[in-house]
């Protein structure tokens, strides 16, 4: 249950067609990359918590092989297209008139050093990870202002990465785009906080998704004759928690940041990495 920003009085969630007391009852959410590895878990969770959730993605299956079991409304969205962003928000406006939660989860990763990265690949990385965040946010803001009226906050959640702080080898363009998202997150929080819109970024470490599997098998990540299982175990062992994360772990944090409990959380970069980046380097001692 939320509380009014100014009076601290409890704010009763709007009634939904469910008897479950969800954290997101009555809210409208849109998740870009909503049919991808992390996106599906976010859509599922926000929906279970009572929100109406639009899954926006390039295709109905997103980056995964199979269809989603989730019945969330789907919006075909190429985040690099301003026209597509406008059309997506037009639909949300027509159907609900507001947007309480925007999650910019669409992203791509090019596994190369800068010498091996073509200009086209560089531009594509920035187009999806940075420009996509910009375009979707820009056109969502009027709907988020509408949601933020009446003392409640709207929540915009970007996807940074622990790679925006420290570098993995052979991921140059990706690291640079995530650093840009971190700075953009702070800038947006400054600009739109006065309008009741909170802006945060989640910075995942290693999360079990197709992107991670690609990192294990891709050209840029070495391998040294080891099997994928051996590599994966080695990666788990470097984490203080001795595992990498799941999309559900990310969805848990999205759910909190999107909720009224997080009404004072804004402008921050939330690292969720099983302790990976808290250590200097895990030496094999």
């Amino acid at each position, binding site marked *: 249950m939320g509380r009014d920003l100014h009076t601290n009085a409890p704010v009763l969630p709007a009634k939904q067609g469910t008897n479950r007391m969800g954290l997101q009852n009555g809210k409208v959410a849109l998740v870009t990359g909503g049919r991808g590895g992390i996106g599906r878990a976010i859509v599922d969770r926000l929906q279970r918590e009572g929100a109406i959730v639009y899954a926006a993605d390039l295709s109905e299956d997103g980056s995964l092989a199979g269809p989603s079991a989730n019945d969330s409304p789907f919006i075909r969205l190429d985040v690099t297209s301003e026209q597509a962003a406008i059309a997506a928000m037009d639909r949300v406006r027509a159907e609900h008139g507001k947007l309480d939660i925007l999650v910019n989860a669409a992203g791509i990763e090019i596994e190369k050093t800068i010498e091996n990265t073509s200009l086209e690949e560089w531009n594509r990385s920035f187009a999806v990870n940075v420009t996509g965040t910009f375009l979707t946010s820009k056109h969502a803001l009027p709907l988020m202002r509408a949601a933020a009226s009446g003392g409640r906050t709207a929540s915009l959640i970007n996807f940074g990465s*622990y*790679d925006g702080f*420290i*570098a*993995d*080898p052979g991921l140059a363009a990706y690291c640079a785009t995530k650093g840009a998202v971190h700075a953009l997150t702070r800038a947006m929080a400054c600009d739109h906080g006065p309008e009741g819109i909170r802006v945060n970024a989640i910075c995942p470490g*290693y999360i079990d998704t197709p992107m991670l599997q690609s990192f294990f098998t891709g050209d840029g*990540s*070495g*391998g*040294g004759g*080891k099997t994928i299982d051996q*590599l994966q175990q*080695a*990666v788990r062992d*470097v984490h203080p928690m001795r595992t990498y994360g799941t999309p559900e772990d990310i969805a848990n944090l999205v759910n909190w940041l999107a909720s009224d409990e997080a009404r004072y959380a804004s402008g921050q970069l939330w690292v969720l990495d099983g302790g*990976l*980046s*808290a*250590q*200097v*380097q*895990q*030496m*094999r*001692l």
Partner: protein
Amino acid sequence: MTRLSGKRAFVTGGRQGIGRAIVEAFLVEGAEVITCGRGGKPDALPCTWHSLDVSDPDAVATVAQSIGPLDILVNNAGVQVEKTVVDSTDLDWDLVIGANCRGVFNCCRAFIPTLRSGGSIVNIGSISGQVADPSMALYNASKAFVHGLTRSIAVDHGPKIRCNAICPGWINTGMLEAGFDLASDPVAARQDALARHPVRRFGEPRDVAAMAVWLASDEAAFATGQLFTVDGGMTAASPLNPGVF
């Protein structure tokens, strides 16, 4: 090489390692250098020596009074104990916090009034004050204290005094070797650690001294309240360097 000519510097912990390198670099740059440490003056040290335990506030105050006006204070003296929180004893606390926290505090409190306008304090922090080395709990925490104190002094005592911290990474000193000696396979541990440094070598005391010279000099006149990491790129890299698996 006269970037520090005409300046008087006091460097704590100048017997060996990083402190000794700072003393020697400051002398090369033309500074008058005074240093200190527990015990007697080491052989062949070409500058004034005070026998001093920085964790003793009265002793620090006495030395500060006897030295007179200064331009540069380098808080380098420090100790490390390789233990987790649960394994650390009260004596470990007194040792690590006494030298690394109280010692830096004692020296800053005693020497700030003796620093001339334009003076520079250089504290030796650590990358371990930013991110954790395993089984170094009190050391890690003590260096985070140094980082916080550095910012406070910069804020409280500017514009008269600048205060910055250097965060060394793994520097070839007795402390580093002690760390490797704890490994089950010291040779493999050394190789593994090297592979995690983009420059493919450990730091040398002179690498840290070079930064100390710059921060102490007038070239750094606009630098204050900051942490300067000198670690061969180690903390810029993810702990998950696949090249070392």
